[in-house]
């Protein structure tokens, strides 16, 4: 994509890659707040109605980052690896809720999952669909969480049977996420054009 040497926001770091603008493909309905940082030479794809709130860091240093439809990423979340810390693409599904201060290095996060405050998803981990990682929890490197897993308390895991058995609960959850997106689209000024 457009790899013109526009003045990227990235500070002149010691990395060997020159300060090039990250090739971004952002859907026209996505909202990117001001003060979002997108760095790295790899492609970043942001789906429709996705919302990136202030101070989110997308580091496409080790591979592509793909963010799905209706996904919200809250402030201070870091998605991706620092330069030289790892490699691999990161795919985040649709209707995913990523809360404040999380660190995401997973290779895949399934649709409808929610990652709560200050939790860490390790390198190469695969989080299934409709999972929930509650606050301050850690999913280890390379771990695979099956669909409908809940990580709670101090790292315990169980399957959310209610979520698994009832499709209407999953639909309601997605509807709630859509409403959240609708609110955030009203409240957060969009500066997506900066990254195109």
């Amino acid at each position, binding site marked *: 994509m457009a790899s013109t040497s526009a003045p990227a926001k990235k500070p002149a770091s010691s990395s060997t890659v020159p300060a090039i603008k990250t090739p971004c493909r952002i859907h026209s309905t996505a909202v990117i707040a001001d*003060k979002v940082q997108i760095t790295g030479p790899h492609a970043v794809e942001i789906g429709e109605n996705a919302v990136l*709130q*202030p*101070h989110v860091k997308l580091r496409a240093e080790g591979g592509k980052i793909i963010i799905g439809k209706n996904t919200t990423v*809250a*402030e*201070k979340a870091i998605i991706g690896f620092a330069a030289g810390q790892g490699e691999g693409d990161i795919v985040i599904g649709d209707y995913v809720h990523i809360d*404040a*201060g999380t660190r995401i290095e997973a290779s895949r996060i399934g649709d409808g999952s929610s990652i*709560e*405050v*200050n939790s860490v998803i390790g390198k190469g981990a695969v989080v299934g669909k409709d999972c929930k990682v*509650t*606050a*301050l929890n850690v999913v280890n490197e390379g771990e695979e969480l099956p669909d409908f897993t809940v990580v*709670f*308390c*101090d790292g315990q895991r169980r399957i959310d049977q209610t979520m698994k058995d009832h499709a209407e609960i999953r639909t309601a959850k997605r509807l*709630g996420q859509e*409403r*959240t997106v*609708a*609110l955030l689209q*009203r*409240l*957060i000024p969009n500066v997506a054009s900066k990254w195109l």
Partner: protein
Amino acid sequence: MSRPAAAARRTHKGEYIETDTGNKISRKSHIDGKQHIMLGGRTVVMAGVQMRGDLCRVAEKSSDGGAEKEGPTTAIAVGSVDVEIMVQRGTIISTNSVLRPPMRLSRGQMTCYPMRMGDNIFIGPGSHISAASISSHVYIGANCVLSPFCVIKESCKILPNTVVPPHMIVPPGSIVAGRPGRIIGEVGDGWGQGGGGGEGEEWVEGGDLRPLVRSIK
């Protein structure tokens, strides 16, 4: 006229910007939507603190077409802003904390709710606060998570690394700890009334934080 102004600015070169009411706000804090944030006075906002004032209640159109009368769209209120007593303030928000007003579905729409905080609250570093309200003399340790719509009443102590579950109401004088947070005891008599701990320990947890606010420069 520009000379004295420049000199005045030079005196404020420290980390904190001090306002007329004694609020100290770090230059390194990230404050969004500052028109929706009220600080009562003698509040310290340290470096790296994220305050999401932009997540405020939005004025809705009523069904008859005209704009509905809306109250003030305050998202975060710290300190007794609308109480006539001018003293007894002092809330400290430590480094890298996040203050984010909670949101939930109301009448088919996602709505943000204001967050109210009292006086003499200490919030430890790295905490995430989404509470509906926090009363006065509360001590919150480091890396705590106060989930959306929890209510913390007066004189509580929240130990470090606690996750207070959503909608939990913590009664006055409790000690909360664990993941999920449980009430593990009471603070007992004399909470916040220090005769002074050791040398130079002018402030106590839950007590008057003014000496501590004063010492932060």
